[in-house]
């Protein structure tokens, strides 16, 4: 009995000791990947056996997209073995795992970061390594300023992307002809060149269609364009700043709702998709139409094109679309890559990032569909059958974009746009996108706005209620922020 309690107390002491070693709250120095506390065994996941052949590079991502590049990289560097780990981020697993693993021996070397949270990581001083020595190469490749802007904090570059994701406005050509007499992109762009014109056009459409055609699916569709064109970021000097563009957005949303310019088909919902292929019907079964969709580069191949055909095949709007820059330039989505601070393979990590996001050959291959499954399997036969990169992704290097735009003249996507070169459309929009205003808190701040706006649009409460509710919500999530 005495022995039992003795054993128990030893175990308690041991646990406490281990706990003390592990408490993140008390650690001063970050536990670098190569450090190991004396009493534990050390499986250092990033170390490769020093003597044998290949160096191992650990890359974590939340899609299998980048895996294509890791295979291509291995093709160019036979002495490197890239270990790719996919952790989805639908329920936050990816971010949670990152937060848990960074600072331990299991941390990866390179991580992918999605637009919604990339700025958080870039703004933190302790997570991403400084890759500013890649700037000259990026400048040579003419990486779009918006891409560089997102990955830079206080002048230090920490993340780069292989994509640029400027936003555009896709419109239905047949509806444009009906209501505006033309479907030529240049002319439509002139008609929708700024917000006032855009709103005026909405009224025209409503009148001429008898309320059966909506300008957009929902006011959420143009939230991004508005917010991307603020003069000030959300946070200045630890204080919340409500830019006039935000107020204008809410005003415009209210106008659109009250006048019936939008279909109340929230993005990513059934109605929103149905509007793309003209199968939208209201609750009573009357058919309705949506004139335009705000979508970024990736929206065309991944969202619009697949949904242009209705599920039962009865409707098909392929070929009936055109693309213009729209009233406001904006940016939506994108995947950045950064190197983890403290990784022992920093040089290799930087090489990989350079290859993926700056290297002209890689980006060209990526965008023009050279990376077919066969091509990749020739380098690594063990990859899955659907690992490939179809042509059309809009890359971040202006040099490459200019080089390959013409090759998209006859592509399927261009046929989808009634012969208009999709790549050219995006190339026109890309340089003017401004990413200076992005902060890591944007996503949370903007999301907190959605429900108060929805209630306001539904007629529940005044605009002051909206601001009050929103600010209360923000006080919960941002205790350090001054909110007036």
């Amino acid at each position, binding site marked *: 009995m005495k022995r039992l309690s003795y054993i128990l107390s030893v175990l308690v002491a041991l646990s406490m000791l281990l706990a003390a070693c592990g408490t*993140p709250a008390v650690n001063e120095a970050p536990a670098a990947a190569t450090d190991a506390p004396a009493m534990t065994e050390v499986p250092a996941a990033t170390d490769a056996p020093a003597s044998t052949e290949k160096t191992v590079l650990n890359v974590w991502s939340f899609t299998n997209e980048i895996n294509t590049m890791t295979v291509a990289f291995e093709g160019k560097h036979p002495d490197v073995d890239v270990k790719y780990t996919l952790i989805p981020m639908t329920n936050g697993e990816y971010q949670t795992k990152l937060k848990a693993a960074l600072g331990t021996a299991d941390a990866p070397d390179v991580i992918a970061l999605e637009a919604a949270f990339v700025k958080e990581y870039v703004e933190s001083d*302790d997570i991403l390594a400084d890759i500013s020595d890649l700037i000259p190469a990026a400048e040579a490749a003419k990486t779009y300023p918006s891409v560089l802007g997102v990955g830079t904090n206080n002048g230090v570059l920490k993340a780069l992307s292989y994509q640029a994701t400027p936003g555009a406005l896709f419109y239905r050509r047949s509806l444009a002809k009906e209501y505006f007499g033309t479907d030529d992109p240049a002319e439509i762009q002139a008609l929708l060149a700024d917000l006032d014109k855009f709103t005026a056009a909405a009224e025209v459409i409503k009148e001429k269609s008898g309320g059966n055609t909506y300008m957009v699916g929902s006011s959420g569709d143009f939230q991004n364009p508005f917010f991307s064109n603020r003069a000030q970021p959300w946070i200045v000097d630890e204080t919340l700043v409500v830019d006039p563009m935000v107020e204008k957005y809410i005003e415009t949303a209210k106008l659109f709702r009250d006048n019936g310019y939008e279909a109340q*088909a929230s993005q990513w919902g*059934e109605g929103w998709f*149905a509007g793309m292929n003209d199968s939208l019907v*209201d609750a009573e079964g009357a058919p309705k139409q949506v004139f335009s969709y705000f979508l970024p580069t990736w929206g065309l191949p991944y969202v619009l094109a697949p949904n242009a055909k209705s599920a039962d095949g009865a409707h098909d709007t392929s070929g009936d679309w055109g693309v213009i820059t729209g009233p406001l330039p904006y940016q939506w989505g994108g995947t950045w890559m950064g190197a983890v601070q403290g990784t022992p393979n920093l040089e290799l990590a930087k090489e990989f990032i350079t290859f993926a996001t700056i290297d002209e050959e890689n980006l060209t291959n990526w965008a023009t569909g050279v990376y077919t499954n066969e091509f990749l399997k020739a380098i690594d036969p063990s990859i899955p059958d659907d690992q490939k990169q179809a042509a059309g992704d809009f890359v971040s290097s202006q040099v490459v974009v200019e080089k390959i735009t013409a090759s998209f003249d006859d592509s399927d996507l261009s046929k989808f746009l009634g012969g208009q070169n999709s790549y050219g459309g995006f190339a026109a929009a890309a340089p003017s996108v401004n990413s200076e205003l992005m902060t890591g808190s944007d996503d949370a701040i903007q999301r907190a706005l959605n429900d108060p706006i929805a209630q306001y649009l539904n007629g529940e409460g005044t605009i002051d209620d909206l601001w009050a509710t929103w600010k209360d919500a923000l006080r*919960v999530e941002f205790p350090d922020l001054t909110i007036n």
Partner: protein
Amino acid sequence: MNLANLKRNYYGYLFLAPFVIAFLIFGLYPIYNTVALSFTDTTIMSKTSHFVGFKNFERLFADDIFMTAVKNTWLIWILNFIPQLGIAMLLSIWFTNSRLNIKGVGIWRTIFYLPNLLVPAAVAALFFSLFSYYGPVNQFVVRAGFIPEALQFLQDATIVRVLVVFIQWWMWFGQTIIILMAGMTSIPIPLYEAAMVDGATSSQMFNRITLPLLKPILIYVFVTSLVGGMQMFDIPYLLTDGRGSPRSSILTNNILMYLKFSSSKGHIGAASSVGVLIFVMTSLCALAIFYFLRDRDQQSQ
């Protein structure tokens, strides 16, 4: 107590040993970590952190939103638990009643248990789809004339609460039936036989035999449902936008915790304080349950 009994009782320690050891190794540290964090301003995005005493807790109590979360969590749990226990109990009684002799009990029970096997994400996505503005429910109720025009169901606080309550009930009542039946079928049949011989009615047998002998199991159901209810997260999180919308009507304790944890800097210290408070609140309630439902005449052997 004689010496033999005394020595024998020490066996209790032996039986407990594996649990205790495993807990000390695996369970103690996370608890200590969470509690320690709740007294700091640690964020995930930076490595600096400071001890701030009770500031996190003070802030919580000063915040309306904490009371909202607590209120919502209780409301949703109670509305879900009462029908759940009621229906599960009713069904369990019917299924174990030899006079009624319901056929196919195994099949019924399996069907009712199925919802518990599904991933909440899929269920939430389904209901989201069903009740969206252009979804089938709207189409049905408008064309059938129940309402004049389509509603934004998922933007109405009451409707969303009802949906969450329904989904929770749907997912758990089958499991409750299984637990109750496991308990009921453990009650020796001779007890009922003797009671019937003595002329007891159904309800008398239920009140005097079933309920008392089922009490430990009922306590289990009550407490675990309470704990689960206080920490309800998946469905309210996945059904709307993860913030308890509309109007924070389904913002539960755990969603509040998650909001603090996942917002840009990742205020894990503040989030941990929510966790600690949830724990304290649940413990007090559970201990109250134990107190009120304790056996007043329990004798030790």
